[in-house]
């Protein structure tokens, strides 16, 4: 763990500082805009009692809406990704404390002091800048502090919509199931937030010294005490997290026995295709009198831990993912060989069974916009590598780092030096390209978006990528308790071709149908065959 963290910092300190700067930048920009709007608006609102009551009420209410909802809604309603919606959402979050505090500050100014200023012959502008603003400052500052701390925390979520920042590290760690990245990202954000809060506290005490003048003489001593305390707290938190993580890594999933009456827990990953397949498997099992508990929509590689930890019983997995991401074995390209390898290893390591794989191959792929493909005459990845310096690359982060992603490509085709590179949530990559914000992005070969003529899949002309045939992985104990699972799911799986899967994905991603509905419709179309297969096996 510690070793992994050290090697991260020695190898990727550039990326880390970029993320840190992005995080600070997004937060600062948002707070700056919020202050620019909130403070003047607050001053105006303070003039009228009724306006003040309404505005304060509305913004106090707005404030309780979770940041995740605000952020996602901004992306989808604006139909753009990246910096703009992130800054917009964060500005919306930062606005209420700024506005409300300014309003309160300006409506509770001590009248006698303001009058004294006027009576001494200060012009209205002077009264405003030299009397009212300094008097309102403590409350405005408190609002600013609240806003900044909130924005730094919420900016983490901005990574989901491609705005960068420290959230990117957490996000990548989440997808790669890499605890060291999670710790680095999480602790960095925590430290940033604590450090900012502490600095603002110091600044507040310096700028607004008049509030606690007696403390001024003790500032130096206080500062040392504060630094010591901040260090101690940071150290404590680091230790705590490390302990948790190390304890977590040491603990093994408990219990491998399964009673016949317990429902079968069907999992899936959190992208469209996996959701459809998870629902489809569940539908098929339910239709054949098995009790099912759906535990779908799990974050990418979390799902494997859930399976080995006996929290789900089966989920759709890809042979290539099993080989490279989970077993971390060297690259192979023959579908049957890959399947045999993972099947044997899973059985031996975890008593988990790979059922038959489907013909559908949801492989890694790279897609390019039709416009860029035409402009540079790109049809395969070799062409792409030649023009990489002219192209903007969008990625979900994982692709750049996993062995079968960009590193594998670079080994075969030569290095890819993109004109620019940005991280987005997987689901946004197609949108980003269609919006003209990027030219190239990793897109699975069954992605529903590839139905769009404006996007073109590139040919892997040097055959770098392994096959990604989909198959259910099932805990051995469950299979023993319910042997029919194998027959049912094998029967479902063999109907799934790449074309069919792409069509199913498009129904959700393009036609906006629900994944469970698409799955049940599809199951209805293959139901007869599955039933036939089942009765044939039981007859044997």
């Amino acid at each position, binding site marked *: 763990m510690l070793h992994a963290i050290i090697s991260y910092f020695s190898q990727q300190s550039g990326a880390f500082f970029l993320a840190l700067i992005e995080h600070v930048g997004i937060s600062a920009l948002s707070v700056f805009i919020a202050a620019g709007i909130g403070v003047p608006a607050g001053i105006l609102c303070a003039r009228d009692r009724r306006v003040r009551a309404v505005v304060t009420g509305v913004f106090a*209410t707005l404030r309780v809406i979770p940041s995740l909802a605000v952020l*996602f809604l901004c992306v989808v309603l604006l139909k753009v990704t990246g910096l703009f919606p992130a800054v917009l959402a964060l500005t919306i979050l930062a606005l209420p404390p700024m506005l409300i505090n300014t309003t309160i500050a300006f409506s509770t100014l001590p009248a006698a002091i303001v009058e004294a200023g006027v009576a001494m012959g200060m012009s209205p502008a002077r009264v405003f800048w030299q009397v009212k603003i300094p008097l309102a400052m403590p409350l405005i500052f408190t609002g600013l502090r609240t806003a900044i701390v909130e924005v730094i925390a919420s900016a983490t*979520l901005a990574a989901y919509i491609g705005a960068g920042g420290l959230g990117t590290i957490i996000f990548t*760690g989440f997808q790669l199931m890499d605890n060291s990245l*999670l710790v680095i990202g999480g602790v960095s954000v925590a430290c940033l937030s*604590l450090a900012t809060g502490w600095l603002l506290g110091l600044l507040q005490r310096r700028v607004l010294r008049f509030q606690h003048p007696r403390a001024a003489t003790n500032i130096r001593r206080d500062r040392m005490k504060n630094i010591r305390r901040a260090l101690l*707290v940071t150290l404590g938190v680091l230790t705590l997290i490390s302990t948790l*993580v190390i304890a977590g890594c040491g603990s093994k999933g408990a219990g491998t026995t399964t009673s016949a009456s317990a429902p079968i827990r069907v999992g899936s990953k959190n992208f469209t295709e996996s959701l459809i397949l998870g629902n489809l498997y569940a539908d098929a099992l339910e239709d054949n009198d098995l009790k099912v508990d759906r535990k779908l*929509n799990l974050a990418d590689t979390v799902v494997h831990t859930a399976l080995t930890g006996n929290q789900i019983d089966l989920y759709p997995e890809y042979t290539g993912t099993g080989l490279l991401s989970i077993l971390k074995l060297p690259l192979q390209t023959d579908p049957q060989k890959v399947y045999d390898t993972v099947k044997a290893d899973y059985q031996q390591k975890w008593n988990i069974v790979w059922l038959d794989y489907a013909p559908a191959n949801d492989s890694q792929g790279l897609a390019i916009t039709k416009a860029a493909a035409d402009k540079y005459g790109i049809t395969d990845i070799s062409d792409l590598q030649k023009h990489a310096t002219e192209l903007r690359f969008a990625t979900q982060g994982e692709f750049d780092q996993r062995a079968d992603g960009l590193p594998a490509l670079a080994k075969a085709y030569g290095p890819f030096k993109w004109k620019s590179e940005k991280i987005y949530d997987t689901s946004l990559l197609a949108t980003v390209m269609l919006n003209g914000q990027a030219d190239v992005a990793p897109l699975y070969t069954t992605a529903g978006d590839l139905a769009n003529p404006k996007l073109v899949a590139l040919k892997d002309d040097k055959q770098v990528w392994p096959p990604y045939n989909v198959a259910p992985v099932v805990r051995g104990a469950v299979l023993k308790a319910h042997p029919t699972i194998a027959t049912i799911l094998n029967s479902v799986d063999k109907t799934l071709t790449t074309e069919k899967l792409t069509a199913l994905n498009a129904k959700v991603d393009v036609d906006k149908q629900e994944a469970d509905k698409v799955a049940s419709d599809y199951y209805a179309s293959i139901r007869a065959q599955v039933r036939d297969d089942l009765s044939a096996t039981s007859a044997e």
Partner: protein
Amino acid sequence: MLQYWTDYHDKILTCFGQHLLITVLALVASVVLATLLTLVLLPHRRASQVVVNLLGAFYAIPSLALFALMIPLLGIGPIPALIVLVLYNQFLLVRNFIDGFSQVDPALTEAATGLGMTPLQILWRVKFPLAFPVLASGLRLAMISTIGIATIAAVVGAGGVGTILFEGLQSQDPVKLIWGTLLVGGLAIAVNAALNAVERASKSRLHYEEAE
């Protein structure tokens, strides 16, 4: 908008129910734990400051990272989500609980002792009612924060309205996102308004009693 409701209202309601359940359970557990912590810490000023600072540092860790880090330890589903939520709430609750109780005028405690009240009676009859507005505002903050963070818990399979939001982002579907926002925002707003009313009532009752 309405079409989505007609088609999927059972799903929407399930998610909403899960969200509500997680929130309520997390809050009950949080309040119990925070109360115990407060009772233990209250007589020790220094220790309570250290603990509140530590909890504050914990609170600063982004929930996404904390949820993810809990997976190897606690797995997935609503239980780890609950634990993370309870941990987060400790900062908001313990800080306000301790503040609330320490703000009670020592003269009143002294007077109560003089009247022959036992320490327990003082806590329950004098300190608790006087600290109540501050306690209630801590509870309100914790509730709003829980409702918000519980949306993020969807990434570890805890269900709830977060599921609708993440699905909405996946499929770029504004209808889902608006539904998700309405549900979770509406819940937060309703809870906020209700607890605000409680806070105000408790404050005005105090003023009334003072006026007597």
